[in-house]
């Protein structure tokens, strides 16, 4: 855990005037190698009349703070649930609630962040893989001598496609896992974050795209294997022909020598 004074240098300065003094910050290492900065903001004790305004103010501040890392992309999501609020962006998140709710909220965000980061990393790799599909798809139909030097490159992409499929297979049960029943706050928040970030739909798309990559590079592998095999056969046939020619020549020489002697 780090305190307000230990905020990472990448974050804009946060002072006591910006966040309530009781706010804690944590850095959660994610599966994709990145870090999620999490602000844990206990709701201060205020009278009922001021409650809504206080919550709105905290949500506003947390949203501004989280926006700093979105780089002009989608604004942070604000997820209200049963008197608590989660402000979510890919690198920064904040949880706002009464002190007794914060551990459950923190656990929900940490759990969700791991899965979301893993999915995001897979999506990024798929996008990068899809860039080559246009060029490589032709080789899944026909492979020739000029393409032979790309064998290792295609094998690498096939391995990457299989690796992506394997990661998706591991990730899918965690994403589809139903929330516990009877419901807990952590389960409800996890489910809400999953819905709002459309993780299930993204997973489905990722599976389809990874499937396309796998099919293209499986096809490429088949064509490469066929080409190499047929080339080996051709070479063998030429060797046999050459041997036969040599044999014929030797026979002819032998016959000629016998005849002339």
């Amino acid at each position: 855990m780090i305190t307000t004074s230990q905020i990472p240098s990448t974050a804009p300065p946060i002072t006591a005037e910006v966040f309530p003094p009781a706010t804690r910050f944590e850095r959660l290492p994610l599966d994709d190698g990145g870090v999620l900065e999490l602000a844990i903001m206990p709701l201060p004790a205020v009278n009922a009349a001021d409650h809504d305004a206080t919550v709105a103010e905290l949500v506003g501040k947390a949203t501004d703070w989280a926006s700093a890392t979105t780089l002009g992309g989608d604004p942070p999501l604000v997820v209200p649930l049963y008197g608590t609020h989660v402000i979510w962006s890919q690198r920064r998140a904040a949880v706002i609630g009464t002190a007794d709710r914060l551990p459950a909220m923190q656990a929900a965000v940490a759990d969700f962040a791991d899965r979301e980061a893993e999915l995001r990393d897979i999506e990024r790799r798929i996008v990068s893989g899809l860039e080559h599909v246009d060029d490589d798809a032709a080789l899944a139909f026909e492979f020739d001598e000029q393409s032979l030097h790309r064998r290792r490159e295609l094998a690498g992409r096939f391995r990457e496609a299989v690796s992506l499929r394997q990661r998706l297979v591991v990730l899918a049960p965690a994403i589809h896992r139903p929330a516990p029943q009877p419901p807990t706050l952590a389960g409800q928040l996890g489910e809400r974050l999953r819905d709002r970030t459309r993780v299930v739909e993204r997973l489905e798309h990722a599976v389809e795209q990874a499937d396309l990559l796998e099919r293209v590079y499986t096809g490429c592998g088949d064509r490469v294997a066929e080409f190499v095999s047929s080339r080996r056969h051709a070479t063998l046939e030429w060797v046999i022909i050459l041997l036969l020619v040599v044999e014929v020549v030797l026979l002819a020489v032998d016959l000629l020598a016998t005849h002339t002697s």
Partner: protein
Amino acid sequence: MGGGPGGLLTALFLQRAATRPLRTTIFEAGDRLGGKILTPAFSSAPVRYEAGAAELYDYTPVGEDPLRELVAEFGLPTTPLGGATVVMDGAAIANLDDLGTILGSDARRAVEAFDLHAHGTMTPREFYASDDALPQVSGSFTGVLDRIRHPAARRYVESMIHSDLATEPDLTSISYGLQNYLMNHPAYMRLYCITGGNERLIDAIVARVDADIRLATRVVEVAATPGAGFNLVAESVRGTAAAPFDAVVLALPLQHLAAVRFRGDELAAALRQHCTRFDHPAHYLRVTALFDEPFWRGRIDGGYLMLDAFGGCCLYDESAREPEPRHGVLGWLLGGNAAKEWATRDDDCIVAAALDSLPAWLGDARRHLLETRIHRWTAAVSALPGGWRPPSIDRRHQPAPAAFPLLFVTGDYLYDSTLNGVLDSADHVAGWLAAELG
């Protein structure tokens, strides 16, 4: 006989199953079709609300769901419904964390133990199949609730399920009580409604049914004729008329069925026995209020919550069914004895009690109130009492199979008092009737 979902669905399925052209007539005593599926509008604003069946059940997590398929076939958009909050003594309990904080850790443990017992008693597959195998276990649901020793935990569970039961725990079976508890678990089923009003389903069926529909025409007498057919006597503003039919499907609520005169001792006795066998009335009362704005915005999550008022009632945020509602609509669903008792009181008294039942943190309802509507559904559904041995599915639909093989009965009360149940019932009758008529 009957222009509710039972009659309309039977006509639709019969039309699809028949191998030769049929002439179908639907008699409806009221001036509208749809029965308990009713989505009227307020008079002070063009805002619709559900006055009858508020939600449909989605069984697709477990198995086939013919109602979901029908809704999809009609191209009707749907909105999922959900809600985990129970309001007790003004405090919102939305999850186990709240339960532990507000009612204490003992109450939380008691609810967790009850939940474990409920899941152990009925699996999702058994829950799914329970429509076909109505409760056989002796004893009432009270016996199961008695397992919860913690009073607050018991009140929490009772408040959660009371309005769905539409009866009291001692008047219903263990299976039906557990069903109404487990329906809150997404692995067992999910809830949804039709976007724009559940009555759109009725409109879609009516648009496809090829039948002579006679509104405001009440069948008062059914008599068997010597040629194995039936003679129906119907009353309307035009007078009384009799007409012969080859087959009759009685798709009426039980109390209306009992009011029809059946000629002939054997026919009358068969129908009397049928009515007596299924006479386990359960009750609903719907109170719906229109507000100038959804003043509770952000405070009700998922479309509804449960209140501990009226022995446990459901409060629907009907505005949540629309993306950007200008007005706010709250609907109270009372069930069981509370519904029966409050149905006898005048509307103002009911509205005052309903508004008083709202927790203070929701906001000042009276300041925003524009209009209210009351719909009384006394004895509209069946309670399925404990230990009751229901007849076989065939026998349920044919009161006198040997003497009157072309007289059928259909209705939600033959199953679990849901729209899904009435669809199963209509499908059963239509298939059978189509086979009988060749």
